[in-house]
């Protein structure tokens, strides 16, 4: 169907991006990471290649997305044994590709799969791996990666001295862009004696019952932090979200407190959002959180602390008790 290529004939020194497929669907985060990587690849005069491992071609549902993507090439490895994600086998396959194609960089989206797989690949290759990168630049021919760090308002710029340069890239940190030219698609043929074996056996899969939250694409977000004081008050955000056609977001501490499920976490450890309107109730605005929402068009902060970072980046800040204001707002809106 498309060009078949042996491991030893793979082109070298490219930038590879991991294209995460799960049951035939391409995770959109793999398309997101192509946006910064394309710029890096162009600056360094290298090709950008999306690498995907799949069980069979028949299940692929996202051909259009692949054809429109920014990748210069797409490399598939196709084998029945790759139908489920099994980190040991997936690692061996990727390590083989790296050994033969000697890429300059290899990047993964910070999905659960990406974060399971990238460290295994880096460990097997004994190379460095940066985590949750949300900015990439080239300076003096070197890739410099930035990430918020130490859970506080500190940003670290990192380099990796080993090749390939490897990193996982924060979810939602970059928007999806499309390319002008359709990528050429190749199937990598593995040698006959490659052992397609994993120690893992997937016995059962239960898809999430909950629909995935639409946070990352929401136009309006009402988010809550510890300043809402308790779970009951936090839950009122859902009433407000209903009235405003919004999605509910949260900070890391309240997710860990169990006030709301972790899927709603905004920030370094969660999703990055850029709604038209963001309202933060009782959120002081640690970098952990603000990194994930600072590109919102209009930010409203409701907080008792005038000096809180979120109050400072807000277009409108209301200084007062977030819980009281939320309750009063709901009362007035439902009149």
């Amino acid at each position, binding site marked *: 169907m498309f060009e078949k290529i042996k491991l030893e004939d793979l082109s070298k020194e490219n930038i590879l991006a991991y294209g995460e497929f799960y049951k035939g669907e391409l995770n959109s985060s793999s398309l997101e990471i192509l946006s910064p990587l394309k710029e890096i690849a162009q600056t360094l005069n290298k090709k950008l290649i999306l690498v995907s491992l799949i069980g069979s071609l028949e299940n692929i549902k996202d051909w259009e997305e692949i054809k429109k993507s920014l990748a210069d090439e797409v490399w598939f490895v196709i084998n029945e044994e790759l139908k489920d994600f099994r980190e040991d086998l997936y690692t061996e396959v990727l390590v083989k590709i790296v050994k033969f194609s000697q890429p300059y960089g290899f990047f993964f989206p910070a999905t659960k799969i990406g974060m399971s797989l990238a460290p295994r690949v880096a460990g097997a290759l004994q190379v460095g791996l940066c985590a949750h990168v949300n900015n990439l630049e080239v300076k003096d021919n070197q890739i410099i990666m930035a990430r918020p760090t*130490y859970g506080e308002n500190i940003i670290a710029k990192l380099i990796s001295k080993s090749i390939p340069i490897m990193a996982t890239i924060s979810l939602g940190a970059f928007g999806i862009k499309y390319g002008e030219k359709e990528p050429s698609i190749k199937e990598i043929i593995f040698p006959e004696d490659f052992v397609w074996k994993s120690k893992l056996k997937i016995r059962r899969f239960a898809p999430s019952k909950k629909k995935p939250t639409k946070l990352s694409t929401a136009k309006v977000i009402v988010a809550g932090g510890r300043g809402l004081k308790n779970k009951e008050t936090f839950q009122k955000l859902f009433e407000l979200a209903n009235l405003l056609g919004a999605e509910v977001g949260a900070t890391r501490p309240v997710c860990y407190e169990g006030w709301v499920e972790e899927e709603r976490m905004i920030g370094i450890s969660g999703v990055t959002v850029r709604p038209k309107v963001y309202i933060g109730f009782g959120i002081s605005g640690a970098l952990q959180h603000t990194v994930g929402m600072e590109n919102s068009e209009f930010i409203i902060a409701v907080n008792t602390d005038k000096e809180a970072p979120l109050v400072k980046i807000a277009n*409108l800040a209301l200084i007062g008790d977030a819980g009281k204001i939320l309750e009063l707002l709901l009362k007035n809106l439902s009149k």
Partner: protein
Amino acid sequence: MEKIIVCIKGVPKPGSIKVDPETHTLKRESMELILNPNDRPALEMALRLKNTYNTEVVVISMGPPNVIPLLKYTYALGADQIILLSDRAFAGSDTLATSYVLAKAIEKLSPFSLVLMGLKSIDGETAQVPPETASLLGIPSLTNVKDLFMERGKWIAIREMDYGEEEIEVTPPIVASVSPLAFDYIRPPSLKRLLEVKTKEPLICQVKDLNLDPQRLGLQGSPTQVIEVFEKKIETKGLVLEGSPEELVEKLIEILKDKGLIKF
């Protein structure tokens, strides 16, 4: 069943973080350390498995000597043996160098059935060390595990994926990182063991005890390097309003109408 090893980490108490301006690494010696909160579910899982399968739980931690009280705390929770991996040569290790030290220490504790770690530390937040350590040990790893039990000599794990939950069968030994939300109840330390641990000291292992390659340790053994650390400066950019809740809500409604979010 062979022993269970749990790796824990001392993390700076939120708010007490200091960065060394020269090396760009955390000044761990001067910080107040707490047990990484995400390690609690890993310990809980190990202790529940200990009860079920009557096996030994060994807790190890790589860090400066001020991690010792945290290790002692895990003994009070029910750990059988506590080990500190501590050497000046470890300072500045990235995830690769850290995983290398842990893998070597774990290897030395063979045979083992299981290595448990928290999903991620609350300071570095990379979540890389569990799979990276497994990779160096050449054994399978699973992340975000919320339940684990044994069936006919194999581990059965329930892990959380972005797409749902998987039930996986795998032959021991494995490394698993435990979901922070795995348990509703996490045990407190026992009073008896709290008293016992007063006279208990961890075994301390240094570079020479672990046959480590000095080239693979600390800053020198860490391919990823921080070249710059800066604090994000924020300046007030918008309108800051104070007043009674009524006045503030009135203003908020005005803005929401203006933005077309409410229509009346």
